[in-house]
């Protein structure tokens, strides 16, 4: 192996792939990244056997070859290289990194021991605008259940329909749905005959957000029976840049549509930023249970946000609001409310409630693509 590459490129490649490697006691090879030198391209791969990332970058290839190198170490070394270009060679499982005033050797492992990252049939795919997907994903990704007790809801649900893409996450206490609509402008192409859907583990979704750029590029999504592949392309080239391969979460996503209430018994309309601020302030006295109480009376022009903690004290805040429907006293985990509001961009939101033991919905006004359903705390 012998190649020369821009240090900037190399840094990008290793920092992207290094993240998912960790200390793996049973299989030490997983602490490594696989470095492959191909004609004109350097390829760096890493995997934790659930998730795999492959990165390609342009390089000047003198001689092809491959080696597995400890990821953390390589990352540290590469980040310390001051020079613009670097030449890398391999000799009997040792990586030699050379620049003008700089020489390092890193001990590696044979590339043959590195796990083989699954390949995909590429006949059928979904092509989608990366920026839009990233934005949508960011608004739901943190809602998924952290616990693995119910695997189906520990991931993000992707549903690709004819002209829309739905992203859904829930942890059984709240649920967020983002609908990406694509009109005639394009930005979405689905070559599958039927609508397709899968559940992506939360960790993979977070990595996906990392690799997606805000630029106006498209990415392709391929499926195999238990895996999914996200593929981005190098700027201005037909060549792939990053592949993210993840397992799909087994199981069927709950029929979440049934959770979303169709109408409201009590509805308030408030300024989003003011509401966030008041909820956060009330949260100071939310105590261990994070509980804040909303008191809503239709004849008033304000709602009351009340919280109390037997040891710390209590707070009563008012918030200007348009109120429709029945009287209501309802209690929420303020963190849940805030997380939902944080994902909305509109200046005003509606909060629709079904009494103090039914699901409530927060919707940003003027943006029908997002909704956030939240269950109250029992009073």
């Amino acid at each position, binding site marked *: 192996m012998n190649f020369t590459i821009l240090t900037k490129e190399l840094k990008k490649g290793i920092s992207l792939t290094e993240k998912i490697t960790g200390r793996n006691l049973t299989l030490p090879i997983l602490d490594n990244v696989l470095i492959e030198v191909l004609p004109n391209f350097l390829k760096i791969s890493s995997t934790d056997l659930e998730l795999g990332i492959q990165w390609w970058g342009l390089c000047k290839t003198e001689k092809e070859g491959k080696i597995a190198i400890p990821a953390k170490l390589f990352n540290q070394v590469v980040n310390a290289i001051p020079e613009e270009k670097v030449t890398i060679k391999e000799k009997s499982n040792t990586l030699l990194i050379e620049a003008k005033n700089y020489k390092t050797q890193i001990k590696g492992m044979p590339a043959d021991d590195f796990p083989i990252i699954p390949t995909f049939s590429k006949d059928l795919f979904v092509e989608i605008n990366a920026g839009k997907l990233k934005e949508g994903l960011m608004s739901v990704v943190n809602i998924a259940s952290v616990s693995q007790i119910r695997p189906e809801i520990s991931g993000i649900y992707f549903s690709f329909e004819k002209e829309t893409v739905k992203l859904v996450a829930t942890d059984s206490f709240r649920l967020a749905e983002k609908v990406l609509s694509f009109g005639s402008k394009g930005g979405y192409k689905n070559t599958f005959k039927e609508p397709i859907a899968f559940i992506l583990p939360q960790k993979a979704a977070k990595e996906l957000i990392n690799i997606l750029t805000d630029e106006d590029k498209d990415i392709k999504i391929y499926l195999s029976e238990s895996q999914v592949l996200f593929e981005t392309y190098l700027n201005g080239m037909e060549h792939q840049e990053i592949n993210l391969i993840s397992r799909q979460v087994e199981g069927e996503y*709950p029929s979440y549509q049934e959770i979303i209430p169709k109408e409201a018994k009590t509805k308030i309309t408030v300024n989003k930023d003011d509401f966030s601020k008041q909820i956060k302030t009330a949260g100071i006295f939310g105590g261990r249970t994070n509980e804040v109480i909303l008191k809503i009376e239709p004849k008033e022009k304000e709602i009351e946000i009340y919280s109390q903690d037997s040891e710390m004290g209590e707070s009563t805040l008012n918030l200007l609001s348009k109120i429709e429907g029945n009287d209501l006293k309802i209690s929420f985990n303020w963190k849940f409310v805030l997380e939902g509001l944080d994902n909305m961009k509109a200046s005003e939101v509606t909060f629709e409630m079904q009494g103090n033991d039914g699901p409530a919905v927060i919707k940003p006004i003027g943006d029908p693509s997002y909704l956030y359903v939240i269950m109250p705390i029992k009073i």
Partner: protein
Amino acid sequence: MEVEQLWQSVLSQIQLSISPANFATWFANTKISSIDKDCVTVSVSNSFSKEWLEQKYHKEIIKILREIDPNIKTINYIVNVVKSNKKSSSNRKQGDREDGSSEQLGFAELDINKETNLNPKYTFENFIIGPFNEMAYAGAMAIVEEPGKNYNPLFIYGGVGLGKTHLMQAVGNKIKEKFPEKIIKYIPAEKLISTIVNAIRNHNIEDLKKTLRELDVLIVDDIQFLAGKDKTQEEFFHTFNSLYQKNKQIILSSDRHPNNIPAITERLKSRFEGGMIADINMPDYETRLAILKQKLEEKGYDFDKDVLDFVANNIQKNIRELESAVNRLIIFKKTNNKNPTIEDAKKLLKNIIAAPSKITNFKKIIESITAFFDIPSGNMFYSSRKKEFSKPRQIAMFLLKKELKLSYSEIGRKFGGKDHTTVIHACQLVEKLWDEDEKTHQEIELILQRIYSN
């Protein structure tokens, strides 16, 4: 040689030639899933293992297999994910929620099994049997033993909050546990109606028919909602027949006896009566006490006997109210950190026990009656001599007298200026039927329940 032994011998030989870590990573949860002539299919737990086995160990595996069976030519690798045990997970989840001191509510829909629509929280273990529901319970148990053989259909009827849904879902859950291969579906009648309406609109009614007719156990809750929905009744009738002929179990529930469900076709009615009809009544005092104790035990609390006595004595008609009383007592205990005394209990349960539920008005009574008999509430009801109107009208007069203590002449005026003697006659007539005719008695009980529910 057995398939398992064949794979075991592969594993035992491979183990010698690779490191334990590699062996544990790549060969965990692998097995031979089938052998078809000269082709062996090996199932592995994830795609990485599949690639690895295919590319790194294939030669070795096939060599070992051929030593044992020279006929083997090819190996297929497939990914077969090992599913975690669902049941234990849902139980653990409930535990989690109760440990937390806050009563954060979750989406109930997520607990429901998507395939069967059953909620795992309804089981026989937490179903309490008393004289009031013995018969329905016995019927249910017979069905669990041999679904489709005894009592088909089982028709359970009784008032709100007495455990019909619990019993039916428990049957479903138990059958699923005993006969995992059986296809079970629980559908509330309202859902059935909307599904059928949607199917008609989307022109895929045939698909729906097919899925319904492939069921082994069909459970329909609150069947009285089919009243007046002719098309749904027709579809349901055909589904019913087709399942019944194939000895598939059908379980139905309603808030009243099939005879008392208005606007439902005779042929359906007679089919409902073809199996076993079991009623669930109000629980007696002892059962109420047992239910209270069980609910407290489930939640890990215990209160004084006289407090429980007080609750059991005062909440008589609805198990759901018992549950809400239990919740109130528990919240009291949590916030004040002491067990409620009988005085506290009286205060806490004032709302449930004392009279607000006994307050009603003219409008409510009339609405409940017209809804119950499924008749239009307009003037027809006030003036027509047809029997379908006259009987409800007489019952309305009787209830207005009994519940609102209106004077006879006032009631007469409300019904379009009828003479007070007409009203007296009506009241006496219904009074007599109330005492003598079981069917009328039951109808009036149910109407009363409707008036005072919510």
